[in-house]
């Protein structure tokens, strides 16, 4: 087991390293005159502009710059943002924004799990009847129609109906509800469909028939057996999903004006704030890799039949 973990860690580090390097090079392809406005050309001489570019790390030997960047990273220094929030430590920027995305993401994940599983159960039980049809209708709309559309319409409708402020405001707890619910809509559909399919498959299994014949109620059956089995394959994705909530949802955060991580990456790339983009890419890829890794370990812990170090590569 330990050997496996070690091997996996090494592989993951290598992948992240390659990702960061590739992005680093891609960023250097962007034109440098994008850093200056018309007024800057009037106010700054050529020499000043060159000095500015050197200071923000936009010119210079890429390999050397990359080396410096990685060196600082290993010492725990994430560096400073140069364009988006000049002279501000990136660690501070992240510390300010991550809590919002994380809070919304985690709560909505829990909410969507509960609601999604309940909905899935209702759909499986009422298969062919109206709960199933309703549920399928919901799922289709949420998966097929672009989320921007129904989220926007939902925002207008609900805030109008209930007289809630449209924008998120920390001081006003009412405004926390709608973004969370909106965020979970898509996952609810996902969980519902998954559970429904799973339950329909399990219906014909021997252990279910046996438990039923012993007189177990459906509800207890769900709780004790079916649900647990259904959750195991799902559990593989839980760590990944939780970690990735940090990246925030761009659409929701911009609709409700939430100062989270959602729009940060896009803005950083558009403003060509190289140091910030690099840190974010490392962060997201590391989280992705870590999430998959944790998911695999969780699977092993939950299902004793699964072995990670199977000789058969398969």
């Amino acid at each position, binding site marked *: 087991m330990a050997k496996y973990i070690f091997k996996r860690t090494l592989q993951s580090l290598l992948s992240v390293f390659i990702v960061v390097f590739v992005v680093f090079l891609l960023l250097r392809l962007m034109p440098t005159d994008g850093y200056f406005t018309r007024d800057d050309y009037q106010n700054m001489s050529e020499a000043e502009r060159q000095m500015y570019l050197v200071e923000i790390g936009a010119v210079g030997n890429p390999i050397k710059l990359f080396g410096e960047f990685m060196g600082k990273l290993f010492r725990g220094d994430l560096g400073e943002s140069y364009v988006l929030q000049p002279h501000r430590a990136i660690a501070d920027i992240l510390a300010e924004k991550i809590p919002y995305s994380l809070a919304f993401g985690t709560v909505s994940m829990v909410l969507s799990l509960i609601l999604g599983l309940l909905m899935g159960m209702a759909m499986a039980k009422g298969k062919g009847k109206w709960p199933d049809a309703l549920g399928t209708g919901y799922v289709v709309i949420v998966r097929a129609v*672009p989320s921007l559309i129904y989220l926007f319409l939902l925002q207008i409708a609900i805030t109008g109906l209930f007289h809630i402020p449209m924008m998120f405001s920390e001081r006003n707890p009412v405004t926390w509800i709608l973004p969370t619910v909106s965020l979970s809509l898509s996952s609810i559909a996902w969980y519902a469909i998954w559970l429904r399919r799973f339950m329909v498959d399990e219906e014909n299994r021997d252990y279910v028939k046996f438990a039923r014949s012993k007189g177990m109620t459906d509800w207890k059956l769900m709780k004790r057996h079916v649900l647990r089995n259904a959750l195991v394959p799902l559990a593989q994705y839980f760590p990944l999903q939780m970690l990735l909530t940090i990246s925030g949802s761009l659409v929701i955060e911009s609709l409700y004006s939430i100062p989270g991580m959602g729009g940060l990456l896009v803005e950083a790339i558009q403003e060509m704030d190289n140091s910030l983009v690099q840190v974010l890419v490392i962060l997201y890829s590391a989280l992705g890799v870590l999430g998959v890794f944790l998911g695999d370990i969780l699977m092993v812990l939950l299902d004793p039949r699964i072995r990670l170090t199977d000789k058969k590569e398969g």
Partner: protein
Amino acid sequence: MNVCKPNLKAALSESLFERIPFDPEKSELTGYSNYSYWQSTFRTFFKKRSSVLLLTIMCAFVLMSLLYPMICEMIPGWETSYRNPNFAETGSATWNLAPCAEHLFGTDNIGRDMWSRTWYGTRTSLLLGFVIAFFDVTLGTIAGALWGYVRRIDRFMTELYNIVTNIPQTVYLVLFTYILRPSFWTIVLAMCLTGWLSIARFVRNRVVAIRENEYNIASQCLGTPLFRILIKNIVPYIVSIIIMEVALTIPYSIGSEVFLSYINLGLPLDVVSLGNLVSVGKNSFEVYPFQLIYPTIILSFVTVSFYIVGNRFADASDPRNHI
């Protein structure tokens, strides 16, 4: 022990049996079932009437979005109704008109007919979706088949998959849009880059499942070239996946296009597409809701029907459902 043994010789008299003459033709008949994979698939698919309905709707929309622009091009003056505002005669009097007899969906903020714009937009978006689906699926299937079948490249491909999917997709999109110009092909490029790998992985898993089957080993022993094995043995099993993926990529690509348009990385605004229409319509929703609602309705019909048809087809092509 006193066991009762029936007197077989006495019970079975000759009269119970009849001799059947030897027939050389009949002796060649073997048991077979008239199970055909594709027939079963289509039968299961069409069993539900709603599938037929949706398929018809889907085809109707696709046809409409293809034919309407062609009809427009043939009638002089009509082709300008989606592109150029009616400037000369009425100026701003035609701006933002509500739906009426002359303009079924109303007009937009400089007087262009929304009905034609919606159909032109659907055409562009569908075209975008099909092109992406085509590239994704072709590349993905070939790569996936190879990946699954040829063991040696498995490690490399898995690493590549991990690396490429780890870079957030936004990075690709934004970078490409900056280095190239935002256009149809830039978006296709950016969206295909990660899409094909996911399809490849899916295909690879299926291939791996059937790789060990005896007939494949037999082919190998016989010395069949790799390519032929792939085409003849493996690919038929994944055709159903291909069709499903194509059907599901359409709603996905339209959804991505709307999202990109929202963050200003979508198609240039002088290209008419559903994403652009939704994005622009959203801003004037409070005052002119029809500018958002009609394109949204058409868009939803298209995506929903493709989605359901795709899923139904996926279910139907699963042999376990062929009852």
